[in-house]
């Protein structure tokens, strides 16, 4: 049975709406409106001329067709997938290993941990520029290191070779992303009840068994969250790649976000750019949906 609403509860509901009004307005103005506008653009033939008051005829799915017919788009999808997968695998494993390390008390633990966070706090333009210099073929720090340690044969033009440029960019992105992974995983590790480990140790479980049978299963929810967030962040990375290679050499590091940027601001094909942008949005949106569902389930389980 529904409870009859009294004047008091009606007032409370009104106050509630009033409180959320600024948020709703903000979202409508800065999220819903641009998204709707983008969706509108994606089904119209919008170029520079139509922006200046000319007409933008409705052209249905032509922009989407032009996008999926463009080999450069599928190339960018592939590059983005490799970039994301490569980044996530290493960010997560290295982050996990570091979290295990920092979960133990040792001298200077706090200091080292905050220093490590620097990588995540630096603006991507700065870290991108640093890696561009360090990976330079002629005067880069990595080649200097290789030469000075007798490994000069391995010295390479990392970012100028289409075969290694994507690897170089992923390498930089791993460095950027490790601290974020470490931090969240560390919080997860600290949430595991110490007594579980102690009890298992008394029962004769080895360190490896304890890790495999206690730590890993208990870390699953946190890990999935970290990977989903990582996927969302990594799939839309733009600045780091833009600074390091600009998508080149040739098109070796042309990730989707760069492709969309080019269609928009170099070719001025706004309709097609909007269509490609919406397609680009699909993957992070899917990940975000999964993440939110997960969050709800956890909340329910926790309640």
């Amino acid at each position, binding site marked *: 049975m529904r409870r009859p609403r009294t004047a008091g509860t009606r007032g409370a509901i009104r106050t509630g709406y009033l409180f959320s009004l600024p948020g709703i*307005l903000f979202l*409508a*103005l800065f999220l*819903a*409106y641009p998204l*709707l*506008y983008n969706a*509108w653009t994606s089904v*119209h*033939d*919008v*170029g*520079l*001329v*139509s*922006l*200046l*008051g*000319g*007409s*933008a*005829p*409705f*052209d249905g799915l032509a922009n989407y067709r032009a996008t999926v017919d463009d080999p450069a788009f599928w190339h960018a999808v592939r590059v983005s997938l490799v970039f994301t997968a490569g980044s996530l695998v290493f960010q997560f494993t290295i982050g996990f290993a570091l979290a295990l390390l920092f979960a133990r008390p040792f001298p200077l633990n706090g200091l080292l941990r905050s220093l490590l966070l620097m990588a995540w706090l630096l603006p991507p333009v700065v870290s991108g520029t640093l890696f*561009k210099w360090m990976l*330079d*073929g*002629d005067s880069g720090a990595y080649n200097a290191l290789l030469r000075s340690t007798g490994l000069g044969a391995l010295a390479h*033009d990392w*970012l*100028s*070779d*289409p*075969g290694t440029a994507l690897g170089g960019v992923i390498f930089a992105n791993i460095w950027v992303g490790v601290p974020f992974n470490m931090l969240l995983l560390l919080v997860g590790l600290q949430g595991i009840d110490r007594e579980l480990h102690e009890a298992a140790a008394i029962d004769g479980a080895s360190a490896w068994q304890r890790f495999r049978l206690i730590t890993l299963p208990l870390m699953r929810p946190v890990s999935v969250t970290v990977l989903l967030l990582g996927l969302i962040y990594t799939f839309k990375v733009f600045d780091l790649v833009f600074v390091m*290679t*600009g*998508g*080149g*050499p*040739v*098109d070796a590091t042309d990730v989707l976000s760069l492709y969309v940027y*080019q269609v928009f*601001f*170099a*070719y*001025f094909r706004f309709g097609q750019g909007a269509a490609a942008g919406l397609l680009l949005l699909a993957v992070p949106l899917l990940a975000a949906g999964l993440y939110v569902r997960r969050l709800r389930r956890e909340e329910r389980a926790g309640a």
Partner: protein
Amino acid sequence: MSQTVGRRAFLRAAGAAGAGAAAVGLGGALASCGSGQKGTVTLTWWDYFTAPHFQAGSNALIADIESAIPGVKIRRRAFPFADLNTALTLGAVSGDLPDIAIIDNVAMNSFGNSGLLADLTDRVKAWGQASEYYHGPWAGCQIGGKTLGIPNNSNCLALYYNTDLLRAAGVKPPATWDELADTAQRLTSGDRFGLAISAIRTEEGTFQFLPFLWQAGGDLNTFSTYGATALSFLGDLVEKGSLSRSCVGWTQQDANARFITGRAAMQINGPWQVPTLKKADLEWNVVPLPSDKTSATCLGGENWVLMAGGKHQDAAWEVVKYSQKPSALVPYLEAFGDLPARSDVAHSGTWASDPALELFISQLPIARGRLYGAHYTDASTAVVEAEQAVLTGSSTPGAAAAAAATKINRALGRQ
């Protein structure tokens, strides 16, 4: 048939559905500022001259204009190079556009066909100074039979060489492709490359590559043949080690840095490097780009443009006209280290006394513009991707040129 929906009508409807009140409030607030006091017009002026040494020259010109033209005040805003075109594009959407802008001459391709720029044809006719400008820069402002801009300054590419290194090797500066390849190879030793160019995947890379295409006797519409010739010439330089493969990541600034530090014995670059090179600790000189079938160099520079929707076009035109008076133009361009686009001032001031600048001026008559129409950027990307594919060894010159030619023809055919 396709159904036409006014974009603004849609925006208004969508805006109203979401947050009409807020949007209208914001728009009203933005629209209400900008009108100055009675009797004076405040003109907004956009350019991309952000570097510190450009500010004194810009401020001096603006002060000069403000004192010479009564009732005109100027509010200048400088954007980073890559942001100006984006700002103009976004301004076209939001209506927030300047009265005057100084834009890259290659941007005339995209903006010239868009209706963004004011038609100056009648004003220029009344002004009567068209014949003072060099052919290339002037032609770059004529689109669809209309005059859409006034050249501000011009530049082009030439070959810089390190005098000491060439003397030590006993070679003369090269004048042909064969000599360039030969000299570059002889000057290569240790961690020094014979030649430095910029082959980065931006317009800078295309700017540096096009002269090779033209010198080979071709143009964008014959890329599969002559593009292959130019690509294989540059590919050979990399193959022989006289040109660093890293140049696919270098801007022209990076090439100049290699040249200054002696890591490149020669470089292809523009006159804007002259002030930096004069301060550097090396002996250098500059000669025309080596020729193959013909001589050619690429024309760069900026144009003054007015916005078609501007409310103060008469005042803005007065400002542009004033800026072109020798008494205002010469000190302005000298402060920038730029070359004039007008022949009547080209033989005065620094340009007559500095041999390096004189050399660049002597090349302006053979400098070619990049006026290829609204979809030039697609073609430009195809060109520089082909160059990168060859220089990095991931494609042969023939295959890269053929692949690029398909894209170029599609881009240039889509007018």
